[in-house]
């Protein structure tokens, strides 16, 4: 059983992942989303190499300038280059988004599967989920940041320290929806014939989960993952707004958007770039998730 699962990915020409890819290719939106997301990733990773202006450098004489050769996307109210800031902001935002999403996904899936599969701890785990859902987010964030900010700052420096904190905070406050959805699906799956059959031949719970349950709850997990990235990017900007996130001169997409809203009337293009970056990234990730869900579901495959 284990050998089959492990070697499945390596067996040419018709592997399980090959089938998934074949199906994925037929979803145009998903393909476009993947290409765009890859492009964004490349841009934020390589951007600062291609466009070497420092995102935090203030050239006060060039403030509020429109697009030009020197500043293709113009500059902000202090004369910082918008293009450089969008690149630098994307690095932070995507890093926070992905990491926080992974954390909340792992937590949510773990708790959801365990709660759905083991009836005995279902009650306590779901009450814990309710507890987290009922917690007022803002005071909780205030307390967490109050307790750990200085310690992390001395241990990792201001930016890495805050990164860890922000990722942690977003991760542990956004896993509940995933956990609930996963638990619901697991409860339904557990009574299905193929699971019962596997159980009757003596498959241990661990393997039952990894072989039969997890692959079948992958689609809701994918969907919440894509939503999670969006949520994390937005939450990070909200935190910055409250002064709990990164330092105010450290660009993130949320921060850029927030700064630009004051100038919405005079310089509407300034909200455009970070806004576009956030929405297109979120959209592309959503499409990817959509395509992946379809591709992973053998019942849809081939239709």
């Amino acid at each position, binding site marked *: 059983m284990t050998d089959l699962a492990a070697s499945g990915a390596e067996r040419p020409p018709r592997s399980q992942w090959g089938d998934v890819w074949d199906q994925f290719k037929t979803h145009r939106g998903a393909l476009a989303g993947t290409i765009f997301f890859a492009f964004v990733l490349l841009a934020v990773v390589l951007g600062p190499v291609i466009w070497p202006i420092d995102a935090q450098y203030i050239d006060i004489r060039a403030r509020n300038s429109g697009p030009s050769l020197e500043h293709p996307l113009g500059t902000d109210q202090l004369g910082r280059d918008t293009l450089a800031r969008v690149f630098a902001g994307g690095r932070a935002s995507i890093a926070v988004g992905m990491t926080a999403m992974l954390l909340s996904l792992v937590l949510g899936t773990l708790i959801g599967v365990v709660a759905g599969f083991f009836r005995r701890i279902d009650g306590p785990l779901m009450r814990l989920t309710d507890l987290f859902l009922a917690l007022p987010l803002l005071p909780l964030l205030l307390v967490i940041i109050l307790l750990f900010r*200085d310690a992390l700052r001395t241990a990792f420096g201001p930016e890495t320290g805050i990164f860890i904190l922000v990722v942690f905070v977003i991760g542990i406050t956004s896993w509940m929806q995933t956990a609930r959805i996963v638990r619901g699906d697991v409860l339904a799956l557990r009574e299905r014939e193929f699971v019962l059959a596997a159980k009757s031949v003596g498959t241990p719970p661990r393997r039952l989960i990894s072989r039969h349950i997890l692959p079948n709850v992958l689609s809701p997990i994918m969907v919440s993952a894509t939503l999670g990235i969006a949520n994390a990017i937005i939450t990070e900007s909200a935190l910055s707004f409250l002064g709990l996130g990164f330092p105010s*001169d450290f660009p993130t997409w949320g921060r850029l958007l927030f700064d630009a809203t004051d100038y919405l009337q005079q310089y509407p293009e300034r909200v455009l770039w970070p806004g576009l970056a956030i929405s297109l990234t979120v959209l592309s990730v959503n499409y990817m998730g959509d395509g992946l869900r379809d591709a992973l579901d053998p019942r849809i495959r081939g239709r």
Partner: protein
Amino acid sequence: MNVKFLTLAVAASLAAPLPSFAERASDGEVRIIYWQAPSILNPFLSGGTKDLESASLVLEPLGRYDQDGNMVAWLAQSIPTVENGGVSEDLTTITWKLKDGILWSDGTSVSSHDVKFTADYCMHPEGGCSQLSNFDDVASVDVIDDLTVKVTFGVPKPFPYGPFMGSTSPIIQRAQFENCMGAKAPECTEANFNPIGTGPFRVTEFRPNDVISMEANPNYRDPSKPAFASLVFKGGGDATAAGRSVLETGEFDYAWNLQLAPDVLANMEAAGKGTVVSAFGTLVERIMVNLTNPDPALGDERSTAAHPHPFLTDINVRKALSMAIDRELLVEIGYGVAGRPTCNILPAPPIYASNANDACLIHDIEGANNSLDEAGWMPGPDGIRQRDGVRISILYQTSTNAVRQDFQALIKQWWSEIGVETELRNIDASVFFGGDPGSPDTYQKFYADLEMYANNFDGTDPEVYMGNWKCDESPSPDTQWQGANMPRYCDPEYEALLDEMSKTGDLNERARLAKAMNDMLMQNFIMIPLVDRGRVSAHSNSLGGVVLNTWDSELWNAADWHRID
């Protein structure tokens, strides 16, 4: 322009020394907009500026502050001082004399009984008077004769001008408010909405939270004033709309307190209908320097006098930080006409303003570098200056506010040019200024090396304000982190000056002491003042006589307003 016209013009101006507008009710209607709407016209029952200022058109005090913060007699014959015998030698009594023949707008005459009644009305124990602080330490108010009233204080008062001075303490008519004392005060709607006053206008209709209609007071003491026959005082909306209605559309003649971005205001003014005016009070945006060590490793003793700061205790570092700042640019970016660069923590009123520190107006990166070089702070391998293993790395906090974050970013860049590393932090204003002793992020706790905010003081007398930097005003765990001495500054010499001020009644002498204290703080760079923030209003180009005043009501001289063609 021919000779005949000139001759005529000269003849006309000789024949009429008072211009044509100096005739009561000759100039039609004046329209004022406040984007906060007045809800009551009794200043003793409201703390709101909108209510105080609208009421100041009707109700007047014995003395006012002019645009420079000087005291001018209004209903009184003169301002009582120690020299003219109005204030007793021991500084415990002040005697006011009313001008002769002043009438209320209903035609009855004003007497010292009205003045005494006003004090009784506000000091009534059940009244809940919002201007009670003006009457602090008042032991009694006695009528000497029909025009004379004496205020006795329980303690010596070097500055006895709390009662009956300024828009917060006008005189109300006894006949009208006699039955409205104490708990009944808020019930007298008719009197609170239509007070009888001595001012240039009287109320014809008051619609709370909307519009006040007024007409010229027929019994106003100057027969040629006011120039306007009627006045409309519109309340509500927002600052942008108010600014537009005066500067762009010309619907209104005067708009109050336009807190708008500099370029927004400049765009509006470009429409050519009106003029933006600004005046400066005591509000100074400043950077506070922490003279104690905020290192988290110190636990409960963070930011207390027990541990001096590793590098900010060196005056050369503080001086260099101040020199590297371009204050002109900060004003241009953040405040425009609503700000001006300042080198003083006490920038006004003019008699208290020192000019001994104006060197800070020069942006001098080179000088800052030299000062640090001389003090032995040399750039390390990472470009950050250090001495004996101490790096100049600063945590610089302020409240969350777009202008402040721009300031932080700019200042960080200037400091990077002198080899100072800066980490920025912004904190939600309600937390930062909240004063909660449980939060580490309050401006009193000051768990950072520098912090930036604005502060000012009420009224014109700086004694209490300068007392903020007494040693025992330092916030610490012993004081539950209360106190206003953020830098934790302790200097017996400074306190000696303060002590002297509390015993001095003479205004010029008080001014000298206040200046000396300001210079002491500034020349030691205990605080780094940045911008003197003013108030901005706008009036239409056809409205003359506006003198913006930050020490009293903005409408203080509405009697002199007139129409210019």
